[in-house]
């Protein structure tokens, strides 16, 4: 549609030049006409004196005027602006622009047939009614001429009008009935005119214009069905129908497939749904079909494309719901130049018959479900000779890149990104001399990068990122790439090997080189690159300092990412980057004070370095728009600046793992968009500010491992978005407030570990329905474990879906949440899989009372640690319900009774500690229990049997450590296997000799079988008797 419009514009421009210079009129014009034109001109505003030729007597020679030779009457006034805004020459728009009013003297030009005022800015009044009295008008073009409001219905008087163009967004029509007066009309353009008041009657109205050949109603705010029953279709001459960019909510109407004269049909982006009628393929003249962007049109690709499509050139079916495979017959659509199936559900492979499409220029099936390999060979003598655009990205294609790709000599864009293609990149692709975009990213391509690609002199975008490519990248790979702007080499196994004085032939904008080995020292060739905007050298094996020249080219950088290298030295202050940049210098060896950027930026990550000194106190005033701040894992000292609260858009503050002192500034509460606050592992002291309760968007709060004192502020009740509350290892005291159980419906993890909390465990904690990890260990809690602790909803079910817990995502950077969980006698730091962890740790308190049997309702529980309390009672038999249990520590309590046999069925248990209790009886040393040694059971005076050295009373002989999971441990006979055979041997008699039967048996299979059958039977019976 856009292309069409541009064509029209181009056409009219050419026409004007012709009028101007090629058709000088020799006749004198009528004086009445001359006067009328002069009066008309006086109404116009022509600041650049475009109409300077409008003087003298012969008005027929004036710019834009044409007269009829015989009558000397003016028949044409063409004042359109040939350089409309949006065109290539729009810089000249101002010179040509006319404005002002349309004077009525125009109506004195009685013979006027052609009037073109398009692309000017006449006063934004309604279209003057006087146009309706220009009775002889055949051509009226008011397109984009500045008029607005209602189109006057008296235009319907122009019964000889053949061409009417009123395209403009500011116009509207209340009632379209006047159009039926335009009985000669062939060409109607109303693009952009608001026809929403007309309703769906427009079809019936326009059906009364039998001469109509072109109808353009794009962006007319038309809505409702376009499917009214028409008695008959009068539009028998219609060749162009453009209804794009409306909101029909309709199926494609059947009357359209009856208009056999149609050449162009455009109903793109119009809210159509339902099946695409196969009848469209039978329209004998159809060349251009645009149905893209309707989202809900369906069709079987296979059926649809097997239709006749006799003259089809353009098939634009993008962004719909086409399914099925491409038929092999697609190769018969000889005239096809443009096929777009972007974002549909096309399946199957690419037929080799496409090779026969000799006129095909544009072929796009990206974002579908294509499978299989690309055809190894294409049909046709010279396959796809015209192809410029080939885009098959975002499918599921597998296999190798075929050689024919290198023979598409007119190819400009190649997109095969995000498939599962493998094998090497064919060297022949270096032959694609017109290629500007090479997209091979996100596949499984392997091998080395062919040096021939350095011959691609037109290449602008070179994307081979996220593959399995290896080997050296040298200067040859870029030899002729003087136009390269986008270089995406990240996530491969490349090693750059270029000379230290290499000056690349390009001036690149994007350098996406993550995980390429660019080192060992900072790449010197970068010094020549003055236009780089996005620089990602992360994880690029670069060591040593950043050279000083880098900070001379860095002022254009909107992305500076050199994280995960071994860069060292001090950073310059100020840091020079472009305004609103993302700066990621994390995980290096930078030292010295923290520099601030010279301009405002939005992301600053300097975590995991060895930066020292304080956080600049003016950070909040220098970077008021900062969204992401991480300085964790450095040697930062001093206090957290109060100005931090001036950065009101901060989503993430991570200052963890430093040596910060002082108290937490209450001004942090001004960062009302804060989602992440991590101040853990510092030396912060004082109380937790009550104001933090205002951070209603806060999702994760870590202040563990500090010296914070006082009680938990009751304002925290308002932190309703909180998923992680980590207050462990501080000096907090007081009771665990019961209100914690009230809000916090999203709280996954609550850690109050290693503080001085006292009092009883609130029963209501179990109302935390999302809680997976409850760590209250190492406090002074007393009372019993509430029975309600068997009700933690999120632990009563097995968590089998991992939700990667990351927060505060900003342009690809995010804060990854983490938690140290004590399990299996170790402290393990969980990150990506944290959401799968379930743990109850109440160890190291003064808890007493019986172990509640309700705990075995926590079917998803993985870690249970109640050690170091005074808990009594026994392990319930139902403990075997806890099938996910991997660590069970009940040591150092007063538990008693027998260890239930069912405990031995917990096959995921990797750690068991029952030591130092009062358990008694025989250890059920069978099944999985045999994987635990004596240390798991030590310190229980009443326990006996393996693996302890203590034998159980009444147990004779050796222990039987439970073969193959049987629960029978009875082996009282003490006889071992060899005895059976001894008796048997005696029974048979040594006298018979051994060698004889051996010899015989070795000769005769049937004897041998009988002999051993006998022995087997004998042994079986003996065993049976023994077990009786």
């Amino acid at each position, binding site marked *: 549609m856009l292309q069409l419009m541009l064509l029209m514009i181009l056409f009219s421009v050419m026409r004007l030049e012709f009028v101007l210079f090629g058709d000088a009129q020799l006749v004198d014009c009528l004086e009445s006409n001359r006067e009328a034109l002069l009066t008309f001109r006086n109404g116009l505003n022509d600041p650049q004196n475009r109409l300077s030729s409008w003087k003298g007597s012969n008005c027929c020679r004036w710019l834009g005027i044409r007269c009829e030779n015989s009558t000397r009457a003016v028949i044409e006034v063409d004042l359109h602006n040939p350089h409309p805004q949006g065109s290539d020459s729009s810089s000249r728009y101002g010179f040509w622009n006319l404005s002002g009013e349309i004077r009525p003297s125009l109506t004195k030009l009685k013979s006027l047939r052609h009037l073109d005022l398009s692309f000017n800015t006449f006063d934004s009044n309604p279209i003057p009614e006087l146009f309706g009295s220009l009775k002889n008008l055949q051509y009226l073009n008011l397109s984009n001429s500045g008029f607005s409001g209602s189109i006057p219905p008296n235009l319907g008087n122009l019964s000889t009008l053949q061409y009417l163009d009123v395209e403009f967004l500011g116009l509207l029509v209340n009632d379209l009935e006047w159009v039926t007066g335009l009985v000669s009309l062939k060409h109607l353009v109303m693009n952009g005119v608001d026809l929403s008041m007309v309703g769906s009657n427009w079809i019936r109205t326009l059906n009364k214009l039998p001469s109509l050949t072109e109808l353009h109603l794009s962006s007319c705010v038309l809505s409702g069905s376009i499917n009214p029953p028409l008695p008959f279709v009068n539009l028998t001459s219609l060749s162009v129908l453009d209804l794009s960019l409306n909101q029909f909510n309709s199926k494609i109407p059947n009357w359209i497939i009856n208009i056999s004269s149609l050449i162009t049909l455009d109903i793109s982006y119009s809210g159509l749904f339902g099946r695409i009628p196969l009848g469209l393929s039978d329209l004998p003249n159809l060349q251009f079909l645009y149905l893209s962007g309707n989202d809900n049109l369906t069709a079987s690709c296979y059926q649809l494309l097997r239709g006749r499509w006799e003259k089809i050139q353009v098939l634009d079916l993008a962004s719909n719901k086409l399914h099925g495979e491409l038929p092999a017959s697609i190769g018969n659509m000889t005239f096809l130049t443009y096929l777009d199936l972007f974002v549909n559900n096309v399946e199957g492979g690419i037929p080799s018959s496409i090779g026969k499409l000799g006129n095909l220029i544009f072929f796009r099936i990206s974002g579908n479900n294509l499978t299989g390999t690309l055809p190894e060979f294409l049909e046709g003598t010279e396959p796809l000779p015209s192809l410029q655009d080939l885009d098959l990205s975002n499918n599921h294609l597998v296999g190798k890149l075929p050689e024919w790709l290198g023979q598409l000599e007119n190819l400009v864009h190649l997109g095969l990104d995000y498939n599962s293609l493998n094998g090497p990149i064919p060297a022949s692709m270096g032959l694609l001399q017109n290629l500007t975009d090479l997209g091979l*990213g996100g596949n499984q391509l392997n091998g080395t990068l062919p040096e021939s690609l350095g011959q691609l002199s037109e290449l602008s975008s070179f994307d081979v990122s996220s593959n399995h490519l290896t080997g050296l990248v040298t200067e040859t790979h870029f030899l002729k790439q003087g136009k390269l702007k986008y270089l995406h080499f990240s996530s491969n196994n490349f090693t750059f090997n270029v000379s230290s004085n290499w000056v690349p032939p390009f001036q690149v904008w994007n350098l*996406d080189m993550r995980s390429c080995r660019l080192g060992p020292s900072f790449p010197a060739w970068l010094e020549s690159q003055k236009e780089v905007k996005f620089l990602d050298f992360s994880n690029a094996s670069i060591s040593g300092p950043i050279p000083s020249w880098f900070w001379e080219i860095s002022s254009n950088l909107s992305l500076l990412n050199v994280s995960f290298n071994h860069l060292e030295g001090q950073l310059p202050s100020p840091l020079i980057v472009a305004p609103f940049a993302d700066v990621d210098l994390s995980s290096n060896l930078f030292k010295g004070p923290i520099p601030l950027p010279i301009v405002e930026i939005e992301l600053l990550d300097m975590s995991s370095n060895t930066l020292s000194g304080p956080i600049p106190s003016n950070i909040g005033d220098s970077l008021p728009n900062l969204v992401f701040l991480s300085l964790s894992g450095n040697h930062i000292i001093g206090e957290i600046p109060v100005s931090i609260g001036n950065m009101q858009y901060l989503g993430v503050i991570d200052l963890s793992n430093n040596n910060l002192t002082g108290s937490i500034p209450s001004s942090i509460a001004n960062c009302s968009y804060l989602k992440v606050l991590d101040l853990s592992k510092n030396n912060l002291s004082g109380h937790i500010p009550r104001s933090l309760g205002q951070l209603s968007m806060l999702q994760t709060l870590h202040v563990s491992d500090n010296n914070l004192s006082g009680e938990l502020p009751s304002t925290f009740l308002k932190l309703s978005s909180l998923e992680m509350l980590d207050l462990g290892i501080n000096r907090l005291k007081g009771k665990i407030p019961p209100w914690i159980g009230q809000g916090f419906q999203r709280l996954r993890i609550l850690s109050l570990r290693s503080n001085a909390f006292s009092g009883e465990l609130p029963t209501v904690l179990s109302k935390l329905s999302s809680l997976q990890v409850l760590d209250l260990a190492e406090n002074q809690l007393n009372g019993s474990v509430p029975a309600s602790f068997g009700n933690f909803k999120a632990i009563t079910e097995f968590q089998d879906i991992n939700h990667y817990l990351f927060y505060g995502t900003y342009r690809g950077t995010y804060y990854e949440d983490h938690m140290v969980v004590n399990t299996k006698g170790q402290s393990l730091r969980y990150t990506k*899989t944290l959401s799968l962890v379930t743990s109850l740790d109440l160890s190291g308190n003064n808890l007493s009372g019986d172990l509640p049997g309700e705990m075995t309702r926590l079917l998803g529980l993985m870690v249970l640690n109640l050690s170091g309390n005074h808990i009594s009672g026994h392990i319930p038999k139902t403990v075997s319900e806890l099938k996910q249990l991997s660590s069970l520590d009940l040591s150092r309590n007063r538990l008693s009774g027998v260890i239930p046999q069912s405990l031995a069925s917990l096959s995921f248990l990797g750690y068991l500690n029952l030591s130092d209790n009062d358990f008694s009886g025989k250890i059920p040393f069978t099944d999985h229990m045999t994987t635990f040694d004596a240390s798991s059971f030590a310190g229980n005076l009443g326990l006996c049997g393996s693996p302890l050295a203590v034998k159980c009373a009444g147990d004779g002989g*050796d222990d039987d450590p439970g*073969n*193959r999971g049987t629960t029978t441990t009875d082996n009282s006979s003490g006889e071992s*296997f060899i005895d059976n055979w001894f008796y048997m041997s005696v029974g048979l008699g040594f006298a018979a000799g051994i060698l004889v039967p051996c010899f015989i048996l070795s000769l005769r299979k049937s004897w041998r079988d009988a002999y051993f059958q006998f022995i087997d039977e004998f042994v079986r019976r003996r065993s049976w008797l023994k077990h009786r």
Partner: protein
Amino acid sequence: MASLTLSFFLSFLFLFSPALSTNSEGNALHALRSRLSDPTNVLQSWDPTLVNPCTWFHVTCDSNNHVIRLDLGNSNVSGTLGSELGELKHLKYLELYRNEITGKIPKELGKLKNLVSMDLYDNKFEGEIPKSFKKLKSLRFLRLNNNKLSGSIPRELVKLSNLKVFDVSNNDLCGTIPVDGPFATFPAESFENNRFSGPELQGLAPYDFGCGST
């Protein structure tokens, strides 16, 4: 548009994930994961981008981050084992019982010098008991029962002086049953439902004639 979205998503995935584990034990376990089919998602925490496998569920490490236990009994996994398990040099407990694992028992398991317990019972292992098991000097529990193992019991296993429990019942083993060393104490049930020709007769050349020929 979709390509943009996807590429953004992918760069987001790759951009900030730390370098892949260089930990050979993690690699070995990841190789194991790729061989196994895991319908109940018990291995979903096995994320190779984590620094070491110690936070992977069903894996236990010692204080030096060496893998010492693999507890995957009863976990509905199927597939095969590979040679990479031999890389778990510190492994003490290999618990893979009651699954649907097929194929041969890799001979590289013989490299697990610290192994105390190898429980492969109730699977569908086939092939022979690797002779390399003779090197498992710490082994106390070797339960291979209820599989489809064939061939004979490697005589070299008599050298495993710590072996307390040995069970190969319900297989397709043949040949003679060793009687030396720890084999002197194993009960008859440990050998039943095989095609053994009888005990090895002491003082004479072992007669393993006919094994596997019926």
